[in-house]
């Protein structure tokens, strides 16, 4: 009996010790800034332990992976940095499979002040990083490096400037967003890109009558393509609508421009889109357009490479695609929030390495790679597009040309609104489409969501 108890006690102690040991192992992992990636790399044996010549690791999180339009460019830039700074710095990448997964994960990390050294601060991540004290004011570094500043540009810097003059993020791209249309379908339906919203709705009716589905909408995820149309409808509704779509974090959505836009979108969701649009993901909408099933999609120029990619689009689709400004000559023109540097409180080597990586990521070289491989517009005109590039990318060239004649320019909802607003639109569109709520009620819900955002 006594022997049994001793054995049982030893087993209990062993269990406790093993749990403690597990905890220690976890703790040692957590000393790195990127647990998963660090473990992966260590497993591969890329970073030998205990050597003094180890490169400084810079943690970086990205959603530009897999089938993302910028995945190839992202990989090339990261590899180029690792090669250039081999032995000195090494970027350890944490890959997140989608924008939503990225934003959610980063918000979790922000709550425990464990954001990676460099990351894109979209959808409120930058604000959380500023509030939790991790984000670094980049402005002094920009001012100290004229060569870097030349390719970032005053406009991009000012776009991200806080009221107190601090700059906590460097934009990763300039965006001009109109919509793409299928020229064959337009021609067969006898329509041209609409100049007014009445003409736009009339075009939809004509396209439908000709047997085509007019719009590639989607309300799942962040309701991206649908919200672009909504932004355009609001942003081109006179001076008031335009001012609203250029306002950061509006608190009240109950105005005539928003309600008018929602009224139009309601008709579009009910009459002029695919049966799966309500609740569909971005991939569904893009696929519908690229497979020649739908006449129009609102999206940015980064989609252009897909039109000639036969793994995504039907053969010869690139020749069928035209690009247009929104009715009333509207155009979404903005800078992205871009990269934030979260190295406050970290070692001097890590801070220097992360800053070096940020500079590299927004350098002339990186912007050129993203332009060539992903159709991402550079921040300034200092990065010139070659004649060959323009010839090979006629849609992008046309959009840039059209942008000069835009009467209304404005931002999209993702940039101006709290992330709770974007989330709210995604869950309210189905109710709008199925006549469960009115546009006025929809606007009330958005206002309430803005009130709730902190």
């Amino acid at each position, binding site marked *: 009996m006594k022997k049994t108890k001793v054995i049982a006690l030893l087993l209990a102690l062993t269990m406790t010790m093993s749990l403690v040991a597990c905890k220690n192992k976890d703790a040692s992992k957590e000393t790195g800034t990127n647990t998963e990636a660090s473990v992966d790399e260590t497993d591969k044996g890329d970073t030998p332990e205990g050597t003094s010549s180890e490169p400084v690791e810079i943690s970086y999180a990205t959603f530009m992976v897999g089938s993302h339009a910028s995945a190839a460019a992202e990989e090339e830039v990261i590899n180029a940095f690792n090669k250039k700074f081999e032995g000195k710095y090494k970027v350890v990448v944490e890959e997140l499979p989608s924008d939503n997964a990225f934003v959610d994960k980063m918000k979790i990390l922000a709550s425990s002040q464990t954001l990676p050294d460099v990351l894109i601060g979209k959808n409120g991540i930058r604000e959380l990083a*500023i509030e*939790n004290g991790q984000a670094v004011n980049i402005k002094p570094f920009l001012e100290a490096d004229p060569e870097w500043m030349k390719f970032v540009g005053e406009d991009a810097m000012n776009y991200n400037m806080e009221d107190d003059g601090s700059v906590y993020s460097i934009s990763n791209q300039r965006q001009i967003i109109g919509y793409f249309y299928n020229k064959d379908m337009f021609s067969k339906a006898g329509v041209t890109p609409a100049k007014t919203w009445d003409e736009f709705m009339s075009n939809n009716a004509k396209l439908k009558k000709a047997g085509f589905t007019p719009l590639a909408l989607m309300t799942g995820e962040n309701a991206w393509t649908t919200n672009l149309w909504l932004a355009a409808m609001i942003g081109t509704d006179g001076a008031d609508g335009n001012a609203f779509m250029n306002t950061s974090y509006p608190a009240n959505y109950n105005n005539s421009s928003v309600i008018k836009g929602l009224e139009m979108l309601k008709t579009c969701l009910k009459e002029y889109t695919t049966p799966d649009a309500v609740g569909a993901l971005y991939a569904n909408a893009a696929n519908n357009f690229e497979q020649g099933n739908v006449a129009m999609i609102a999206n940015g120029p980064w989609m252009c490479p897909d039109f000639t990619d036969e793994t995504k689009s039907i053969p010869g689709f690139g020749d069928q695609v035209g690009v247009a400004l929104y009715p009333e000559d509207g155009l979404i023109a903005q800078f992205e929030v871009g990269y934030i540097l979260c190295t406050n409180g970290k070692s001097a080597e890590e801070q220097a390495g992360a800053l070096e990586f940020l500079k590299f990521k927004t350098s002339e070289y990186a912007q050129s790679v993203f332009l060539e491989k992903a159709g991402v517009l550079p921040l300034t005109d200092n990065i010139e597009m070659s004649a060959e590039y323009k010839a090979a990318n006629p849609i992008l060239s046309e959009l840039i040309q059209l942008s000069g004649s835009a009467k209304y320019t404005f931002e999209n909802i993702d940039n101006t609104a709290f992330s709770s607003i974007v989330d709210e639109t*995604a869950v309210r569109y189905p109710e709008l489409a199925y006549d469960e709520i009115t546009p006025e009620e929809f606007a009330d819900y958005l206002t309430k969501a803005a009130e709730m955002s902190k």
Partner: protein
Amino acid sequence: MTKNKKWVILFLLPGILLFSFIFLGPIIVLFGTSFTDWSIGKEISLVGLKNYIYLFTEDKTFMDSLKNTAIWILLQATFHVFIGTVVAIILAKKRWYSSAIRTIFFIPNVISSAALGMLFLCVMNPQYGFINTLIMKITGEGFSQNWFMDPKSAFSAVTMTWLPYAGLVTILVMAEMSSVSEDVYEAAKIDGASSFQTDIYVVLPLMKNIIGTSAVLAATSMLQKLDIIMMTTNGGPGSRTMNMPMYLYKTVFTNNNYGLANAQGVLLVLLGVILLKSIRKIFSMDAKE
């Protein structure tokens, strides 16, 4: 006796310590911060019962999530357990198909929720989904129903992603049934009971504890259900498929309102405790043999 007590305490100590560090500590923090206006980067200040009052008096989405969670708990604790038990009784007859059916019935329990969510999105897709196609084939007419996004069908569609798949209940009940002595069946047979009567009046009462346990597991699983809702409807349309875990998640990550989210967390914990006690009482599980 005193000596034994020491041993009991000694053996329980590691478990108690682990529970204290991993669960008790965070629960105390959860409870404490539910009375604050905590959000990242802001000064925390006490707000008393403000979060709780807001949830019950002003927050319609929370009330919807509470109602949906309650309905799903009820359905899980009754219908889900009923299906699992019936299937277990049928499979216990050990017919030629029993083994295959048991394996097939358990498959949804071993597929990850993310994969299951994508599967249901495809099956119920309004454009090319299996269900709509099947209805069109049967009726010979055009049919398009957006199961997950039509406010009239969304709740039922989400419910159908877990309610019928009671493989775990079946396995548990079958395991308990295998421990019933053959003598019991023989005695019932001698008394002239039919197979159906034996199942209803003899076997089922003997299964009381395991059915109670299954009901606890099934009902409390609804207090953790998040992934499949996130994959399919994200709580919409509106808040028609919102449940408490999903709303808590959104309150934290969309609204950055940890104080309010933690008040929801406290209510979730309380609901779990009430649920556990109620089911144990209904099945008299606390009564000594």
